[in-house]
């Protein structure tokens, strides 16, 4: 196939079409809408596969495809085009997005069966796919920005899908706002690029980093990092992810686990050339990554809401990726690799969680689960495999990717290397702990089911096939993807032309690190088993240590925001409203009033007595004469 590049637009067009049709289609599509959406998502996956095969058929350094659609905003030196660039990196994402995306569409068909607004839900899902694909396919930062905000919009719509719940509406708003802060970084980055290079297309910018000053590049890097933090829920902009779980579970799986939140990793990897030339920025990146992977893990340990616990783990896993991406060429490939494997097992886990909730009348509190393995075996198995994968059980996907990242972290060398590596190891242990906790509280132990709002006990049952099928597929992914990708370093080689790669050498050998990782994992599992496996889980959460309570509140980050931003903002706006009314407006009204007063006083002179008038005239005449004489005098 010689002109495959023309297919690229199709990738975006298919789901976009779906979104338009479904959102404008009206009620007549209510019956078939979800299938339309799923079909179009699938179609775009098929296209992706075609392009993938096409790409494999080419030599490693000539695999990038370009497609220029039209000139978007041409103003003077500012030339923004709608043009696509499909290289190995984008290809990886495209496959992940469309693949997992299609699966989750399929899953949602079952999950949203009883929701009268299912058509709109699929419309939003398609919109999200389109935006996400635009994000990874764009050949310049401005178009990427469009996709960037597009996914933000989609996630806003989907988190707030159940708008009648105030909590959902608030969560959606919060997500969008926090993301906007990040977006500010991205748009500023684009401005800096334009001022520095006169362009913001990937090629020219990334190729000419050499000639720009390091200060500029550092600034660029930090701005891009800010953007990444917003989208990927990294400290300090992580607060929205937990609340985002208000959305339907498939949303949490697709957007807030598998794809959207990884956009930050994509951005940093894509802009590798900039970070490589700006060590300070890189340091910032790894710091953020390390902090977040611990932060998320700790939060994950404290949550009783199964989805929130998983959300915490998402944060932490993306922390790993950011960390890796921050390590430079050593880490890019592994960041992406972990991203892919994580896409599989985390999506699987979420779908599992959704399936559990489906069976438990939408109960999310794990303390009210327990002993479910007998009632929903498929869910149990697939969820279990995902669990093993995420804690990095040797041989499963997570093991390969995470192990490599920890190794790379140590390879950073010096104290930094030790700190980062240590953090990563610790993170692995905690991950094992909280995931085991989730596993035990949900599927083992005795039943702690509570009657729901309507007062009836849940009757856990296995979910319909449309839901289990995707879970099974994803489970396969979580088991084998890692091994497949690291087979003869195939994935690294695949990405190398884009991201570059070099073998860092860790202070202690790879074998040692692997052992350490496994040890950490075992330790975490063991602790969790002692805590939750051996003794019964209380249905009401114990008070817990200070750390626990803090962790339950997302380590007080929201409280901080509330005090500083929300309260402060309210005060500011209220005082400004006052200022506007009484000061800015007051001045003008005051002037008018003063004229009125003056007028009132002056008209008193007009007292109706002819003689007063005569006096005034006489005085006027006197002044007139005096003035005239004075004029002559001076």
């Amino acid at each position, binding site marked *: 196939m010689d002109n495959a590049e023309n297919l690229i637009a199709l990738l975006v067009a298919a789901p976009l079409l779906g979104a338009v049709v479904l959102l404008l289609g009206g009620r007549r599509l209510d019956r078939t809408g979800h299938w339309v959406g799923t079909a179009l998502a699938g179609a775009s996956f098929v296209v992706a596969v075609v392009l993938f095969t096409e790409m494999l058929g080419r030599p490693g350094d000539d695999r990038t495809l370009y497609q220029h659609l039209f000139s978007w905003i041409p103003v003077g030196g500012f030339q923004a085009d709608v043009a696509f660039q499909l290289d190995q990196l984008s290809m990886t994402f495209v496959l992940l997005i469309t693949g997992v995306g299609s699966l989750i569409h399929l899953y949602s068909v079952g999950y949203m069966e009883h929701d009268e607004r299912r058509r709109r839900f699929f419309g939003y899902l398609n919109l999200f796919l389109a935006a996400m694909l635009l994000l990874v396919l764009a050949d310049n930062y401005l178009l990427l920005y469009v996709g960037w905000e597009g996914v933000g919009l989609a996630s806003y719509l989907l988190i707030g899908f159940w*708008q009648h719940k105030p909590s959902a509406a608030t969560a959606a708003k919060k997500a969008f706002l926090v993301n906007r802060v990040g977006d500010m970084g991205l*748009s500023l980055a684009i401005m800096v690029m334009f*001022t*520095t290079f006169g362009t913001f297309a990937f090629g020219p910018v990334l190729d000419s980093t050499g000639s720009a000053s390091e200060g500029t590049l550092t600034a660029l890097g930090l701005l891009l990092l800010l953007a990444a933090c917003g989208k990927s829920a990294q400290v300090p902009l992580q607060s929205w992810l937990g609340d985002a779980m208000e959305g339907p579970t498939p949303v949490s799986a697709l957007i807030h686990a598998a794809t959207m939140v990884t956009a930050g990793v994509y951005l940093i990897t894509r802009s590798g050339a900039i970070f490589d030339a700006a060590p300070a920025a890189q340091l910032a990146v790894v710091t953020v990554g390390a902090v977040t992977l611990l932060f998320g893990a700790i939060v994950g340990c404290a949550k009783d809401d199964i989805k929130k616990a998983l959300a915490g783990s998402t944060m932490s896993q993306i922390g790993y990726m950011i960390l890796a991406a921050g390590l430079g060429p050593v880490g890019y490939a592994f960041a992406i690799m972990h991203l892919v494997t994580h896409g599989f097992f985390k999506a699987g886990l979420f779908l599992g969680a959704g399936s559990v909730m489906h069976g438990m009348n939408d109960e999310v509190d794990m303390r009210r689960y327990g002993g479910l393995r007998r009632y929903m075996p498929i869910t149990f198995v697939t969820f279990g495999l995902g669990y093993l994968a995420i804690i990095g059980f040797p041989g499963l996907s997570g093991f390969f990717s995470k192990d490599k990242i920890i190794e790379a972290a140590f390879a950073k060398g010096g104290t930094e290397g030790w700190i980062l590596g240590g953090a990563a190891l610790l993170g692995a242990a905690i991950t094992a702990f909280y995931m085991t906790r989730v596993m035990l509280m949900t599927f083992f132990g005795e039943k702690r089911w509570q009657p729901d709002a309507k007062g009836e006990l849940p009757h856990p049952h296995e979910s319909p096939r449309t839901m289990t099928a995707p879970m099974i597929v994803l489970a396969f992914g979580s088991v084998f993807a890692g091994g497949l990708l690291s087979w003869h370093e195939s994935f690294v080689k695949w990405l190398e032309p884009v991201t570059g790669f070099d073998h860092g050498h860790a202070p202690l050998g790879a074998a040692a690190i692997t052992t350490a990782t496994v040890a950490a994992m075992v330790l975490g599992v063991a602790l969790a088993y002692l805590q939750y496996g051996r003794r019964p889980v209380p249905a009401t959460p114990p008070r817990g240590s200070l750390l626990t309570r803090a962790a339950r509140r997302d380590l007080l980050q929201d409280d901080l925001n509330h005090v500083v931003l929300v309260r402060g903002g309210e005060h500011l706006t209220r005082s400004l409203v006052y200022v506007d009314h009484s000061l800015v407006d007051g001045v003008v009204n005051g002037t008018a009033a003063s004229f009125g007063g003056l007028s009132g006083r002056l008209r008193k002179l007009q007292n109706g007595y002819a003689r007063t008038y005569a006096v005034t005239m006489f005085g006027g005449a006197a002044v007139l004469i005096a003035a005239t004489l004075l004029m002559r005098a001076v």
Partner: protein
Amino acid sequence: MSFPLLTAAAALPALGAIATAAVPAGRRTAAKWLALLVSLGTLALAAVIAVRFEPGGERYQLTESHAWIADFGVRYELGVDGIAVALIALTAVLIPFIILAGWNDADPAPDAAPGLGGAAPGSGGTPAGAKHYRWRPTQGFFALILSVEAMVILSFEATDVFLFYILFEAMLIPMYFLIGGFGDRAHAGSDEHAAAQRSYAAVKFLLYNLVGGLIMLAAVIGLYVVAGNFSLTEIAAARADGTLEMAATIERLLFLGFFFAFAVKAPLWPLHTWLPNAMGESTAPVAVLITAVVDKVGTFAMLRFCLGLFPEASAWATPVILGLALVSIVYGALLAVGQRDIKRLIAYASISHFGFIVMGIFAMTTQGQSGSTLYMVNHGISTAALMLVAGFLISRRGSRLIADYGGVQKVAPVLAGTFLIGGLATLSLPGLAPFVSEFLVLVGTFTRYPVVGVIATLGIVLAALYTLVLYQRTMTGPVKEEVRTLPDLRLRELVVVTPLIALLIFLGVYPKPLTDIVNPAVEHTMSDVRQKDPRPEVEAAQ
């Protein structure tokens, strides 16, 4: 001497206004249709103008020039550049929707209907009472709208300073009657209170703009004393080739005189306080007319007259003006967050947006100025969409207070959807038209004044804040009792909103037609002010 297209584009609505006003009292519907047809005809003429205009050609095209008041050195001179064409098109596009949206706003209602909009209780509020007065509110309403359209279009076309000034002032009068005479029927408190509020708003509007205009008059006279005529082209040319020398102080004073008037109109902080009152008290269509059409004359005039006539002074004043623009951006946005009244919120949002426009104009870069021009157009469309939908909502519930709403989305999904799109346009979401212009303005400013650009970028976060808060409080959450029965958008209302949204999306995805028209004009302006875009620091490897 070909067909006077520009004159026709202004004359048609003017005659239409007279004809509409002449429609007998009983035939309200006829008047409405007449007005609508006239506005559509104007739209057609505007389309012809846009087609006949060659982007690459002369700076001012389709020019007309006739002697008028020789004694004042005034000629009837018309001509359009790309910027004018864009704004004329905007005006011609919006007016039909405004008329359609205001279709029933000016009917004398039996119930409490403030101002000229109808007779109020106590003074024979019944239709009979309305008949007893010979006043014909409906005819007047649409006639006034058309007359405003005529003056606005002509002021975009005028290349004679005096002619422009006359229109700039004269258009206040119909606007004044529209604001003060046809108030929003949804108001808190008694009719008397509402009437007082309304006439306060109207008077405030008129006085602010009149004072601005009179100060401009002094400057206009001064300009005549200095230049001896009023022809924009001649003066600009004379300034360019140095045959017309202006002492720095004189030029600055004149510039300030002009700028003050435009800043009031725009409106720029701290001259903005008339806008929230005017938009809050008037009906939604009139509010749109104010902020989307009439105020654009101010920013347009900054671009054409301030920069064209007083380049040095413009450069001299730039720092201060940028400062004011920044304040407007942040201040307007923050105040929008603090509002309880939907329409006032949108008004403050507009103030913030006008800050962006002014900033782009005085950033003195192609991106900034093209961005500003696009911004004028896009802001017009997006505000129209948002404000008109808000108006539909308000007319249903009879309240402007945000707190009186909740869960509308569940009752009237289409209304909520259109409202959301309008809001997303206001927060300039990529893919919708305003994003293009806002980003251009930001980039254009950043390349020359990085700090200003950075601060202004805060505006996009704040915009998201007030828009989403508004949407959340009104549309989402549990359904309020009073809201439960609200009907969804009717056909007429859909006809109004849908094309606007379509435009927003189209211009967001493919703004090239607009930029192609605007860019050459901006190049001219840049050469007027003798400015060049700053070069990139490093030559990017292609």
